[in-house]
């Protein structure tokens, strides 16, 4: 009986894992908007345009749109050193903010689809999970 119960619960948790409705892209963007307006906007701006030559823009940013994995790594581990965005070199330190992987996915989906940015894909927490710190060191 005990065994049967164990199998039952194991089976249910498997079903639960695979059948649980995934967060929709719209939901993720909505959550990401809340995170953006708490953690990010003071530096990157409400319109995503950054600040002079100190903070790079997110709107129409070639770095962001062409280096999605690197951008995720920046949020996950912090981003240090020089980066070039739309031809301008930036060298400010962006700290890791203590965000969970699903929160990083949400805020990525938000910034990739705001201010006329368009990204067909959908970033998930699983994708964030897989990104190692080492890709920042190349």
């Amino acid at each position, binding site marked *: 009986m005990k065994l049967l119960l164990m199998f039952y619960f194991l089976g249910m948790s498997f079903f639960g894992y695979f059948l649980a409705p995934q967060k929709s892209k719209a939901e993720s963007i909505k959550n990401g908007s809340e995170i953006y307006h*708490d*953690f990010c906007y003071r530096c990157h701006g*409400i319109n995503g345009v950054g600040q002079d030559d100190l903070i790079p823009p997110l709107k129409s940013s070639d770095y962001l749109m062409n280096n999605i994995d690197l951008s995720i790594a920046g949020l996950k581990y912090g981003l*240090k050193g020089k980066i070039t965005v739309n031809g301008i070199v930036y060298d*400010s*330190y962006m700290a*890791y903010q203590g965000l969970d992987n699903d929160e990083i996915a949400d805020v990525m989906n938000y910034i990739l689809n705001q201010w006329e940015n368009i990204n067909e894909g959908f970033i998930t927490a699983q994708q964030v999970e897989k990104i190692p710190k080492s890709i920042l060191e190349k």
Partner: protein
Amino acid sequence: MKKKISHIFLFFFILQLGCAQDNPPIIETPTKINYSYKIVVDGIDIPWGMAFINVDEFLVTEQSGILYYVNKGQKREVNGLPKVYFRGQGGLLDVALHPNFSENKIIYMTLGANTEGDKKGGNTSLYCAVLNGTQLSEVKLLYKAIPNTKTSQHWGSRIVFDQKGHVYFGIGDRGERDVNPQDITRDGGKIYRLNLDGSIPKDNPFVKKSGAKTAIFSYGHRNPQGMTIHPITGQIWEHEHGPRGGDEINILKKGANYGWPEITYGINYSGTVITNKTSAPNMVQPFYYWIPSIAPTGMTFLTSNIYKSWKDNLFVGSLKFQYLERLVIENEKVVKREKILDNIGRVRNVVEGPDGYLYVSVEGKGILKIIPNK
């Protein structure tokens, strides 16, 4: 021609609408630079707080939750820290030595904490502990603000001591400006005062107010990230981040209300108005306010003669514009502001070392020492 002139007027009028009036004196960039700097310790991403034991030895906090003991430029991690809740602007914040540290080895720390074990986020706390080498013992929680929240914003926090056996520390409004700063029964948006053992001083301003948080010393603050004792008057000087515009320097008085968010010189980040009031009865005016905001962190008066003509000036870090600001004060007014270490990076903190030199902590760089040219 007339049309052209009116267009020019219109242009300036619109420009005027777009940006609030800068508050004088306007920041100056010196043409001649009489100093250089050297990095005394590197490899600390966000060096938040700093406390000197002597010329060679000091403590540095890294915001994500590491306390470093530095001896002659070599850093080692201190063990035995309380659990740090790190999120957004929170984490391990300031560190300070007990006024009698040379005998009792006690240090104080402010940090984001979740001591309740709920999953609701965190709030600012004050701890003390005994430091032996790189080991903490007798870790004691002296104060913990409630409730916990997951918001990233406004944790404070600096620690200072007066000569009468009190420890002072600030906690920001935790992103709840309409709820916390004006309500003395709630934490957040306050400067607190405790006895050195963590007990509540009998003469704290609100000890007899029912329901009040009796540790409160002053209220109506937004996000205090700079505090220092004036070397001559002994008064506590505090600065705090305003919204867009309206960062403030305040001289703290017991029981006083500094007005946030009922009065402010700032506006919302989005450009909308918070309040039209910049003053009100029973609310204290700032000593100085910054428009535009510099995002001030860390603050010290310079008491040494090491830098020509900088003695008695006030030094404040700017996170936003990435320089150290030198403020000259005459007849209780800021008469001059100047950029030091322009474009150095996001400045977190500035202290005067026991050797009289200025030590500046910069994100991604570490701790720099400013050296005057001969």
